[in-house]
């Protein structure tokens, strides 16, 4: 890169996943982390912890987009989808064509007319919805983009447990550079060239995670959860294909792998949303009390509107939407799904 710094990479976003990824990379060299607030930077520098999580000594923190862009050629933006465009607009003035961006955000961007809220939108055109990599190309001069996705629950990464991720990009170079900084003895990296498919795998599984949380909250066991995972996979593939993804992308670590992890873990935010709903809380109460964004809620609205527009089969998404926003009784939603006329077992490939 044009820089003289010795940072191997930069991370944008000091949330739980951003800091987890910064910690993994810090094992390979110096990492610059961009936090929004100065007190977070100060806290990490002085205590080497954040919210009780230990931060590697190779992590340095800045609040300056300019410093991050000028010090790091390889950048991992990991911020909520709803804040992504705004973050890019702040970063964009400092980005150059030599930069490589690999994001770790499992959500979608949607631009709505003023005054509209996403859960009231009935239909959306494909052009109105963007994945984060599409957003990067739209908002910045950067062309070499990628994403990382996979079963990467932050809690387990901080715990030092063995895990793996997928780095996806059209560019070999992006996969190569990303893998080089992420790989370690406890973290494997798999390559994939289906960028959109891998992004959508990470995004769509959150809808299923909410459903899995609901089932768990209702006290159902493994038969029900497996039914959800299998039919959830089918639905993800239908929706993904409808948005132009190659179905193969959903069969690997970032697809089936992430789906199983997030539908099984009470540490998953989206799972938690579903679980608490089933226990009788309202969506407003749940969102109010969570300190990080559960992307699945917005994703459900976006995918429902796309499914309506393009007539894609999405019974689980439709049911989750009605439970979340139309006050449908959970048992009724479940009954609708049980009565939904699925015919073939594997009809999606």
């Amino acid at each position, binding site marked *: 890169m044009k820089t003289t710094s010795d940072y191997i990479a930069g991370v944008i976003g000091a949330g739980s996943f951003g800091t987890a990824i910064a910690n993994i990379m810090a094992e390979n060299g110096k990492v610059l982390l961009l936090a929004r607030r100065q007190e977070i930077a100060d806290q990490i520098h002085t205590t080497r912890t954040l919210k009780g999580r230990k931060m590697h000594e190779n992590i340095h923190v800045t609040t300056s987009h300019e410093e991050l862009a000028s010090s790091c050629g390889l950048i991992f933006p990991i911020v909520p989808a709803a804040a992504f465009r705004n973050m890019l607009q702040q970063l964009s003035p400092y980005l150059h064509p030599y930069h490589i961006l690999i994001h770790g955000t499992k959500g979608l961007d949607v631009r709505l007319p003023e005054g509209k809220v996403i859960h009231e939108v009935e239909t959306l055109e494909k052009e109105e919805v963007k994945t984060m990599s599409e957003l990067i190309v739209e908002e910045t001069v950067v062309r070499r983009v990628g994403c990382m996705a996979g079963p990467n629950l932050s809690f387990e990464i901080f715990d030092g447990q063995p895990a793996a991720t997928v780095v996806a990009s059209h560019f*070999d170079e992006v996969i190569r550079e990303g893998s080089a900084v992420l790989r370690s003895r406890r973290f494997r990296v798999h390559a994939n060239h289906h960028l959109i498919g891998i992004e959508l795998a990470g995004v769509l599984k959150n809808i299923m995670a909410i459903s899995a949380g609901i089932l768990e909250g209702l006290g159902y066991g493994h038969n029900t959860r497996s039914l959800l995972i299998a039919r959830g996979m089918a639905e993800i593939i239908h929706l993904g294909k409808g948005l132009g993804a190659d179905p193969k992308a959903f069969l690997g670590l970032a697809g089936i792998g992430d789906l199983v992890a997030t539908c099984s873990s009470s540490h998953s935010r989206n799972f938690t949303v579903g679980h608490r709903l089933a226990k009788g809380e309202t969506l407003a109460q749940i969102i109010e009390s969570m300190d990080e964004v559960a992307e699945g809620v917005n994703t459900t609205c976006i995918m429902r509107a796309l499914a309506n527009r393009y007539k894609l089969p999405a019974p689980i998404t439709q049911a989750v939407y009605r439970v979340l926003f139309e006050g449908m009784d959970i048992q009724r939603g479940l009954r609708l799904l049980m009565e939904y006329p699925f015919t073939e077992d594997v009809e999606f490939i």
Partner: protein
Amino acid sequence: MAKPAKLAYQNEGILLPPVIPQIKDWPIAKLLRKNKDFVKLVQAETLTQLHKHAAREGKDLHDLIATTMHREHLRMVEDPWKIDPKDERKFWKEIKHQLVQNEQLENDPAAFSAKSEEMLESIVSVYANEISSTFKPSTYHFAKRVLPFIFSTLLNASAGKTIKSVINHRIGLQEKVHLRGEIDALRTLAAKGTIVLVPTHISNVDSIIVGWSLHALGLPAFIYGAGLNLFNNKILAHFMSRAGAYRVDRRKRNPIYRTTLDAYSTLAIEKNCHSLFFPGGTRSRTGMIEKHLKLGLLGTAVEAQRRNFLDNGSQKKIFVVPVVMSYHFVLEAKSLINQHLKRTGQEQYYIINDEFASYRKFIQFIWKTFGKTSDITLNFGKPMDIFGNFVDEAGVSIGQHGRDIDVKEYFMTRGEIREDVQRDGEYTRMLGERIVDRYHAENHVFSSHIVAFVAFEMLKRRFPDFDLYALLRLSEEDRVLGLKEYLATVDRIMQVLKNLRDRSKVMLSPHLETNTMSIIEHGVKNLGLYHSKRPLTFQNPQTLASEDMNLLYYYRNRLEGYGLENHI
């Protein structure tokens, strides 16, 4: 009132003063003056690339030659053309013989690879000489004086003007073909860097119109990859091969030929020759604006840009200029759409077209195309760098938020410019997608496109259970539309189009600045004017009907890709 005096250049049919006054100073003239040297350079570059390719893919040259020989053999048997050299069978027979002999040498690796190398050199030499063009200023001079004369005679005669007007040449090509768009930028940039002009491809007259327009805009000649079939016509062949047109044979899909062709294009662009090719490959069979481009020649622009920066230490930039052509009438529409419908669902092979093979057909073509048709629009799009960023008139790439971009940095990894074939391939793919987007945004919509689109889509909505083929076979009584509903629908579509225009997603031709009924009348009058069965016509003042559904579908397709069907 006295006519204003014509400037000197206007006497040669040029609308704007030449960017480079002396032909001898044109990059194409400088490069092709020593044509033999350039062909040698192409051969050397091709061999280098083939060695790299073989090393990357782990293949040996002997196998590469054997594959090529096999494919050439198939081509000669299955798809021979009149224009093919008489001795090519002999040449490939000899290669076959040498391949067999070479296989005896497998125990002597040095001799084996020396022999392979020799065979490869001879094949590359044949290909490079076949592709190469020349540039003869004298022919160019002659053509630029004579062709406008011939054209305007034809135009005036076919427009049914009086004898007097035919003699006086009241109508010039400039009255029939409207040149719009970023003409100033194009002229300025032509003096600063290398232009790669990439037009949409609708009709056989495209290349003539683009060629004339570049000349009329005072630009130096471009090198142009012309389909080998066009060289069947001796007059065209004479002019084209002396005016920078190199031969592209789409039947030859073997790697040695493709590499030679790519090397020719890369080196010419690198040597600052402005280049013109139709990235759609062949004329649009469906009538749609191209959705998928052939990336081969586009890739040579990306490669030439990298080589400028990496190998030549040059800052010379390559500017990509999309051009969109709009017609009310495409003479070969019927055969194009029928070819498409016959081949739907199958691999689309290039079919030799011989519309230009005889002089009579050639003249008939020009005659009908320019005849009573009111408009042909050629819209020169906003110039971009090869990464799809717009450039200003100084040639500086402008990024989001108005920042200047140093495009060299796209080739950099860890602070150095590096060669990365896979990366260049991805940049090429992205450039292809960007050009397709720009084609849609720079497309000038005509009244005829709108009337065809609305009529077809209304019929489609009336028969929601019909597939395309059932729609195309609608009975005559089912192809009738009432004016009242039709008018309301066109009105709605016009609003959607205006909205798209305001968001820079499409352009509307000035003739659309009128009321909806006038748009319909203008559109129906001009739509596919010369077809014996009209795509859409007024049956009586209150009803419209289609006499030819295939043609209606063809002209309807021009507005595919804007989501207009959701508003029918």
